[in-house]
């Protein structure tokens, strides 16, 4: 076993861990020195945030410059607490929101550039501060990874350390229950004991841990839930903290929805399937105002209420032709599909499986091999009868639903969705074969919560008392999102990760100099 020492140990170096490490080293440097060390199990820093592009803030300089000055920190706090029905730690929310604009400045001071502030969908607030990709003036997927690179370089310049490919497996405690160090395991399987004054847990939740998803949320991954499974996000930090007496707080999924097998690869097909056209469940009935499909959390929530957790969007050739001529109803910069140019090519590749090995059927699509039934989630049909036979949608009801829906579009009710009040622009009748169907399931980015924290990001025990020296941040602690992630304030996850990481680090360093400090070796 190898031995080392640090003042603050950060468990995992994803977005929240990287922010915590950076803030911890800065705070240590400002109060007389010391070392912050992060142990990261993968080979890079930034974690799931390397896929992201933006973070939320209120009343930032950038927002003022773009004249997005109509949604203040106070507005945001009131709005958010209403949205979550106060089922959220108000102290944490208030502290996070108040700090959010300072954090944008904090990042800019380190050389992170922002493209500007953006909405996520038409009814959302303009809160996303988009990280600028070098040499580009457009929002770009993954651009946050460049911010993570900058932070990674910066934290090492000021004396912080990241030890890669080295997961932490245990948090050590002293005689009074205070944190005294961690045990990590390096690439060669050798254990490292790192003694320290404080530990910040930042392992990102349980998104890749199928057993824990089922245990804590009740969903069977790959059957009725198709969340992203980011390798390595296995609940390490939660288990370690629980093992030393941390309270188990509720864990939720950051719910969205997706079309397994198409979302990543057949992007045009996927994007057309996400347009606000008729959506039905297996009973052949509408259950959603499809206009809200741009709010992926709401869509995921409504899918979770349906039989087998699935819903089907249905559109016809006229709609395809309309999109080819006039463009899509909804365009998102995060998916980046702006036109229909690839429709025919992708359709051909998807439906005819061009070039499949002579050896037999291919797995067809990413993710499909995980499903017992081997089903696909995108189809083209010549008739509604055939559509129902293959998809299992109730034929009698679907025919009635389509007749009624077409009536809303073109008949006496022209332009009025008396059922769910969808905007008239999105009422396009289903009349001309071929008919296209996309099946959607609840998805999600990952889990939220698991540790109970104070507004100083101290991790609490069952008595709601902080465990001395133990802090948490990021998704491991994100119970603030309550039952539904608030997509009206886009950029929340990344903003919460960075701000909670910073708060945890500031608190940990303050703790070391405080009267509450308990010598780890006691």
């Amino acid at each position: 076993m190898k031995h080392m020492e640090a003042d603050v140990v950060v468990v995992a170096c994803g977005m929240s861990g990287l922010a915590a490490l950076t803030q911890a080293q800065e705070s240590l440097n400002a109060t007389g020195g010391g070392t912050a060390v992060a142990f990261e199990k993968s080979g890079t820093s930034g974690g799931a945030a390397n896929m992201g592009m933006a973070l939320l803030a209120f009343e930032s300089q950038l927002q003022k410059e773009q004249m997005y000055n109509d949604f203040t920190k106070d507005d945001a706090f009131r709005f958010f607490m209403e949205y979550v029905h106060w089922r959220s730690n108000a102290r944490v929310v208030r502290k996070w929101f108040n700090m959010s604009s300072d954090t944008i400045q904090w990042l800019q001071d380190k050389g992170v550039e922002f493209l500007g502030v953006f909405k996520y969908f038409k009814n959302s607030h303009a809160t996303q501060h988009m990280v600028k990709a070098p040499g580009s003036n457009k929002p770009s997927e993954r651009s946050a990874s460049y911010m993570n690179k900058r932070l990674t370089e910066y934290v090492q310049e000021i004396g912080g350390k990241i030890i890669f490919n080295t997961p932490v497996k245990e948090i050590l405690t002293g005689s009074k229950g205070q944190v005294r160090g961690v045990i990590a395991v390096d690439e060669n399987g050798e254990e490292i004991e790192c003694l320290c004054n404080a530990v910040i847990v930042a392992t990102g939740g349980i998104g890749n841990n199928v057993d824990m998803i089922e245990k804590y949320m009740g969903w069977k991954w790959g059957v009725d839930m198709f969340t992203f499974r980011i390798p390595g996000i296995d609940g390490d930090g939660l288990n370690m903290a629980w093992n030393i007496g941390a309270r188990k707080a509720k864990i939720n999924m950051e719910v969205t929805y997706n079309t397994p097998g198409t979302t990543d690869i057949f992007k045009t097909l996927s994007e057309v399937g996400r347009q606000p056209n008729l959506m039905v469940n297996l009973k052949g009935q509408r259950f959603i105002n499809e206009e809200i499909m741009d709010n992926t959390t709401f869509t995921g929530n409504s899918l979770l209420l349906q039989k087998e957790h699935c819903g089907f969007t249905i559109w016809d050739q006229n709609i395809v032709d309309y999109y080819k001529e006039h463009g899509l109803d909804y365009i998102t910069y995060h998916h980046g599909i702006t036109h229909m140019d690839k429709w025919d090519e992708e359709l051909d590749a998807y439906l005819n499986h061009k070039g499949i090995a002579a050896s037999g059927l291919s797995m067809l699509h990413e993710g499909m091999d995980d499903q017992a039934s081997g089903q696909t989630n995108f189809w083209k049909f010549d008739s509604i009868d055939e559509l129902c036979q293959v998809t299992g949608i109730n034929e009698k009801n679907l025919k009635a639903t389509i007749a009624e829906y077409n009536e809303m579009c073109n008949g006496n009710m022209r332009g009025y969705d008396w059922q769910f009040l969808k905007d008239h622009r999105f009422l396009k009748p289903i009349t001309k074969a071929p008919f296209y169907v996309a099946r959607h399931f609840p998805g999600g980015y990952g889990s939220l919560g698991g540790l109970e924290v104070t507004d100083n990001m101290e991790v609490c025990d069952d008595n709601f008392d902080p465990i001395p020296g133990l802090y948490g941040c990021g998704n491991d602690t994100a119970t603030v999102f309550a039952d539904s992630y608030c997509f009206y304030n886009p950029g929340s996850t990344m903003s919460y990760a960075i701000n909670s990481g910073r708060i945890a680090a500031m608190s940990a360093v303050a703790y070391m100099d405080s009267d509450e400090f308990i010598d780890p070796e006691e």
Partner: protein
Amino acid sequence: MAKVEFFVDGVKVEAEEGTSVLRAALDAGIYIPHICSHPDLESRGGCKLCVIQIEGEEGTHLSCRTTVKPGMKVTTKNDRLDQIRRVSMEFMLAGHPHDCTTCKMYLKCEFQAMIQYVGAFAGRMRDVVKTTTHINVNNPLIVREMERCIVCGRCIRACKDVRGVGILQLNKKDGNYEVYVGTKDDKPLVDAECAFCGACVEVCPTGALQDQAGVFSSNYPRKQALVPCEAECPAHIDIPEYIRLVKEGKNSEAVAVIREKVPYPHALGLVCVHTCESKCKRSYLNSALSIRNLKRYAAEHDDKQIWKEKSKIKPATGKKVAVVGAGPTGMTAAFYLAKQGHDVTVYERNHKAGGYMQYGIPKYRLPREVVDSENQMILDHGVKLVTDSEIKNVQDLKSVGYDAVLVAVGTQAGKDAVIPGLDGCGMHTTAVEFLRKISNGESDPNVKEGAKVIVLGGGNVAFDAARTSAKLGAKVSLFCLEARSQMLADDEEIEQAQEEGVEVHDGTTNLEIIGSPTKLEGLRYAKINGFKFGPKGLEVDKVEGSEAVEKGDYIIFAMGQKTDLQDSFGLEINRFGYPVMQDVSHKTTTDGIFAAGDCITGTKSVILGIEGGREAATEIDKYLGGDGDIDEVLYDREPLNPNIGYREGFNRIPREELQVESIDKRARSFTPVDFGFTPEQSGCEAERCLQCDLRCDLHKVKMWTEY
């Protein structure tokens, strides 16, 4: 070779003449981004990420293709070079999935780290929709998610230049300009004669090529996991190395490799439970390598015994160790402790050493000459053996001057079954007791010509008892809970037993023993649909109306074993009869007294017993002031030849099976039931090895974060 001095971004760097600027800079700890270069492959300059400028020269150069020159001044970072790198990455990204949400390589991906480092993102270029990504995706072992491929060509070079297999190539699609990595005529990998060495997967910088999930365990460090047989072997024998040596006819060298970890190669070659084979990568292709039989072959042809040349005994320490029990655990521990320089005495209550190898496993599976001869080799290292000597109390040993004591007494007592009627019937025994008698040359009067014997249990011990009874002339029926596919015994044991006349009633539950103290009537049993262990213990799901009575004269219980340790033995014993141990160690609660093997783990296998003995030896050596290092190199390895070459039909060579003695010759005989591999068979079987360890020699590319 001459050294050259030059400058990278103003830093003086020294490198060997002929080195590329890229390699020299990386070796000096200066990072230059690159994705198509790989330390084990010749650079082709495809990705353009490693561009540099050289003072006094026009334009830009590729550092992977530029040789260092004395005094050369190289710039690796400026706006122009960054711009070239970004544009080059953008071209690669145009055909790569936009987000990484479903990629299993996320955060282990070189390409993703490069996106982060270079700061290039999709957005400006038109997306490329590949139409060739579903070609050749249905293969064993190698998962091809070709939508992630950036056509860097590393896999092609690894396959051709490193391995000499050369089945991967760039194919061009008819009708458009799409270029993709494939095989000749898009044949599936098996038909294309892939050798499944995994080099292509190892060098892939993206998630395009991945290992099939489950092939490599995530419970071990990566390099260890890459060689599943060695990782799964409790003693971690260097299996690929000795298999190569057997292939080359170097059997003594092979035995030396095996003996680095275990002192019973021959016995293990006959009876090992071979967990190595259960995870053999070849089993995903056709069937696992016959590792145990190759070990047996090497041990049976160890003419030179070269392992003795390097087997060292350290200078005497003056410390005395007593070992109680001369089974595989005790003898192994004694062997390594003697080699560490301690004065070791083994006490055995039976007449000979070997434990269950001597007094349990029937001779037709494990001839006693093998056990005796391997025991003798241990004694030749200075271990003293005292047989016919039962230790009644371990504390006595401490008081007569032993510095440490190891208890390795195994599980000597058969477990009583809880079956109604058992108490009223005297006509039964346990398999351990029965097998011990037969091994010892005694007989059991109830197992004789024409007797009807009922064996209860479905593991190897049950089959040992059943086959032994059958060979003695009894008519045998065996009852066990498990269904045939779940039975714990080796398949070959079950099959051979059935051929020898043992009737197997799998999936049954025992209801009652009918009989008197002197006479057994039979066993009442029922068929079951299944069973599980619930909170109240065993729960069975009986098949309605399937109850029946099997008539018989004698019952042998083979339903597990336990220790026969008593409190008077001088150790703290728990309520199950096992010594109380300190944490995860081999220390008992009495200072200086250790325990290992079956007597702490419950009945396991010979190989686990040996590994327990090794671990205990390490701990005891440390306790006595040694370093605990019992590892040794008995054969000096040659560097591995990475070039395995193109071999037609290699991936389809079937597994060699042992020739088994004909049923009429073996039915009533205790001579070995099968013959080891012939020289031809051993060569053919060893040839099948995929040499998983070759992959460990490929270098891992360090990401920018590691500079």
